């Protein structure tokens, strides 16, 4: 949920940006991270853990912990807490470890 009124801070949001999450279209703002845009839309489950298939979300939000890895524009294991949202991004929940290198490609 986005904060509209705050006693100390004023949030200057950038241009509106469209992106998709698991095939559905959403709107975020230029300058914010993918994690921020997803949270604004109420989405907190980012992936499934590779072994026990448990839901995983954001934990540290500054690129340290790797809890929030997602597949972005086909690239797996993107830390969406530090990756900025860009127009037309295709964001997908990640299942498994993702293919980072495939021989012969």
């Amino acid at each position, binding site marked *: 949920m*986005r904060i509209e009124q705050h006693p100390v801070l004023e949030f200057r949001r950038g241009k509106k940006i469209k992106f998709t999450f698991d095939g559905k279209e959403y709107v975020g703002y230029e300058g914010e991270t993918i994690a921020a845009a997803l949270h*604004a839309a109420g989405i*907190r489950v980012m992936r499934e853990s590779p072994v026990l298939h*448990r839901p995983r979300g*954001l934990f540290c939000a*500054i690129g340290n*912990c790797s809890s929030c890895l997602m597949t972005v524009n086909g690239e797996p294991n993107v830390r969406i807490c530090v990756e900025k949202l860009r127009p037309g991004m295709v964001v997908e929940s990640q299942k498994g470890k993702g293919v980072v290198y495939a021989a012969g490609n």
Partner: protein
Amino acid sequence: MQQEISFVEIAVIGGGPAGLCAALEAANAGARVILLDRQDRLGGQLIKQTHRFFGSRSHRASERGINIAAELTGQVISHPLIEALTGATVFGFYEDGVLGVEQEGRVFYLKPSRVIVATGASEKNLAFPNNDLPGIYGAGAVQTLVNVYGILPGKRVLMVGAGNIGVIVSYQLLQAGMEVAAIVEAAPRIGAYWVHAAKVRRAGVPIYTSHTIKRAYGEQEVEEAVIWQLDEQGQPVPGTEKDFAVDTICLSVGLSPLVELLAQAGCRLAYVPQLGGHVPLRDANLQTTVPGVYVAGDAAGVEEASAAMMEGALAGLHAAYSLGYGRAGYEDRRRELQHQLDSLRSGPVGEKIRTGLARVLAG
């Protein structure tokens, strides 16, 4: 394939309070500095600190972290002797003192004469069933979402930890419009400064001391949290459980210094619980056991941002001095910084830090 290696005088890794002050101090003495930060924006965790700082005026008391970040960042960017690179991750510190850096898909190498490591710290987790559910965040993560991006992580939160961060973040969440169900603290007393704790108590938030979280419940996300009391030995007391319907749990249980690069550099580390975990041994100038490699800020031991700034300045001053810069006035400046740092760590509040530092200070 040809690889680019640049020789530089001083590399500062991390652009938070310690790194910014290290870069400024060294450059003001006349040294050329390259400052590397992996985030898109300088300031480190100051950029989400909307509360006013404590201490005396020389410690920037009553200023808000966000304003300090803006001021220091402005000075760094406009300094003719500092080159600041953002989005630049230092991924390796090699035996020959070479740093590997990645910036927007490009990899390059630096061979600095001096390196100041100011990489900060990461949030600690806590062991309890379902602690991996979405909706459970480090307190700093919630601060980033709320204070940097203006987004609430949920509607109702349980805060674990009544130290300064836990209590300040609780207050910031109230300000931003979230409901704070309770704050729990394993210790028998509140660790935060009283003025902060009083604010949340006045807002009607209960603080349960000698309590900890027992477990979280929820299918895909947090739906409920259960806390229970701890006895004098720190053991949970069955039958004392309390349930809270919350969609968010915030963990404010301390930070661990990020010392990976220092470990790669071969610096001797020691496990010092009072400083947050593994930290490098260092001398009074913040030089580690590897000559020419310095540490400052939370990477040297978890403390307040004001201490990080002074440590950064001390490290920057000495790194420059060791390269022949800033000879005039060096002793006075060093003594002044050391005095400020000592006064910040004086009294009962600084006791834990002093005990920890006694174990890592050498030379």
